[in-house]
């Protein structure tokens, strides 16, 4: 309800109008829907989740008033001592240990191979990107079919097939999920590395060649350091993906089985918060997870940037 831009009728001599004066108004107007959106969908829920995590909270019908007493850190205590929660964080660790190196190596190899004038170059690029643009649910369905007890992979392996089979095997379920996610997202990182490779100066390769470096040596001492920022991004992205995992354990391994061996924190949030109606526990778990993501992302950054000097 401000009156900016509409000068009130006065008898005072008019100030010379500066033409830029209207800009602040229009800029704020342009961003206002986005600001509202971020407030409603990000800031308020974030604040609300922190509030819930310190209270005893129940789902109620709209309009019903029910006591939500302050319970301090008790929800956090429950979260941190819960064996299923611990297992789900261990599972993210397993996920990261497999996903990060696999993504970095495969994406870098494929990007280096693509980084030249080649026939069918755009075909290869499109092929690598395909899983990235396709719905997880559709791809999970195919992987279930490939990795099922009577799936193609086991048929090919014959007697070498694991028993119990991949998705119901407590030591293999999580690695299969990590490989699935690597495969699904690899195309994105191939493109990221491809862009990074184009900014590595060609002279470095030439001087490496003059110094007698072979193909492998120049890959290790020119390419790998040259794309370090992309590697940081891969790591940070993997941490965020790991913290977000839900559809893969839920669908691929039937609700995070066997015996929570492929459960993820978000899956536990869903099961505890919504299925078992303990939203306060789930909110505290959410906060712990945010802290975990931020800390890991910072560590990943420190770790990969350190080698630069």
């Amino acid at each position: 309800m401000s009156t900016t831009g509409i000068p009130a009728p006065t008898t005072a001599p008019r100030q010379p109008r500066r033409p830029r004066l209207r800009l602040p108004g229009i800029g704020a107007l342009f961003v206002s829907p986005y600001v509202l959106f971020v407030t409603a969908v990000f800031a308020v829920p974030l604040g609300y989740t922190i509030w819930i995590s310190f209270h005893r909270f129940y789902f109620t019908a709209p309009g019903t008033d029910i006591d939500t007493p302050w319970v301090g850190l008790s929800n956090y205590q429950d979260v941190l001592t819960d064996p299923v929660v611990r297992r789900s964080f261990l599972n993210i660790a397993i996920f990261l240990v497999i996903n990060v190196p696999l993504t970095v190596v495969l994406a870098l190899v494929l990007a280096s191979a693509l980084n030249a004038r080649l026939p069918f170059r755009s075909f290869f690029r499109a092929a690598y990107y395909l899983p990235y643009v396709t719905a997880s649910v559709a791809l999970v369905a195919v992987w279930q079919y490939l990795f099922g007890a009577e799936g193609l992979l086991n048929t090919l392996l014959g007697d070498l097939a694991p028993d119990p089979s991949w998705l119901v095997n407590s030591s293999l379920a999580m690695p299969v999920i990590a490989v699935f996610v690597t495969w699904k997202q690899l195309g994105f990182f191939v493109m990221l590395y491809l862009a990074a490779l184009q900014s590595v100066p060609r002279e470095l390769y030439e001087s490496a060649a003059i110094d007698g470096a072979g193909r492998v040596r120049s890959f290790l001492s020119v390419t790998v350091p040259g794309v370090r920022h992309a590697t940081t991004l891969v790591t940070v992205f993997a941490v965020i993906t790991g913290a977000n995992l839900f559809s893969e354990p839920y669908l691929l391994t039937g609700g995070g089985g066997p015996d929570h061996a492929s459960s993820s924190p978000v899956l536990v949030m869903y099961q505890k918060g919504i299925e078992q109606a303990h939203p306060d526990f789930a909110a505290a778990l959410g906060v712990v997870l945010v802290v975990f993501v931020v800390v890991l992302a910072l560590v990943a950054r420190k770790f990969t940037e350190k080698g630069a000097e």
Partner: protein
Amino acid sequence: MTGGGRPLRLAVLTVGAVAFLFPFYYMVIGSLGKVTTGDLDGAVPRPGNTTTGNYESINGAISLGRSLVNSGIFTMGVLLCTMVFGVLAGYALARLRFRGRGTLFAVLLLVQTVPFQLLMLPLYVLVVRDYGLGDSYLGMILPFAINSTAVFLFRQFFLQVPAAFFEAARIDGAGELRILWQVAIPMVRPALLSGALLTFIGPWNEFLWPFLVTKDADAQPLAVSLAGFMSNLQGTVANPTGALMAGACVLAVPAVVLFLLFQRHFTQTDIDSGTKG
């Protein structure tokens, strides 16, 4: 990495392409089999064993048309909001001065690093319980309405347009909305297209949120109803794996086709020609 090694490169790339494409091939073949099994026979198409019956059975089990309409409305709602409000915000962040611009940009970056899933519980309480938007399109769309990654991209695109274009338009007396519509958008149109594609695949492929919001099968988008079929309804059809593969194909095709149609726009940009002319 210069010169040589071409056969090696091609060999590596081909092995990669097979690993990426095989599951898609397998999905299509599986969706067409009369009996879909995981043995070697299932991996090769055979004239005698081909049928479209799986598409009929998945349609019978989860009413494909209804799910597709729900997916379409959900996706279009997100796309529309992002293209209108996201372009406005991206333009303002790139080209206009206003109080709090720096803060808003910092928030934009923060929003992208905090995963949506972490906000799922309070959003569920607010949207479904407090606002009563369960099983509604609005409830589905709300958390994704303006894609922050797209806003960030739009900002980057508008930053790449040389300032001279905007100055010239302002001297000519054009208002900001007119500058945005007639100067800025035409210059970044190919880039906006890739922003739109990125925005499209998000809600189209999204599973968790619509899964939480929709309990009524008639309100579920395809990803959710297909997942429901995968976990509870497989017993209701004669060839469950085939039906599941058929549903997976229907879910995959729109995003894949759009990507293939528009992928050449990813690299193209009209900005250079604008400055050289």
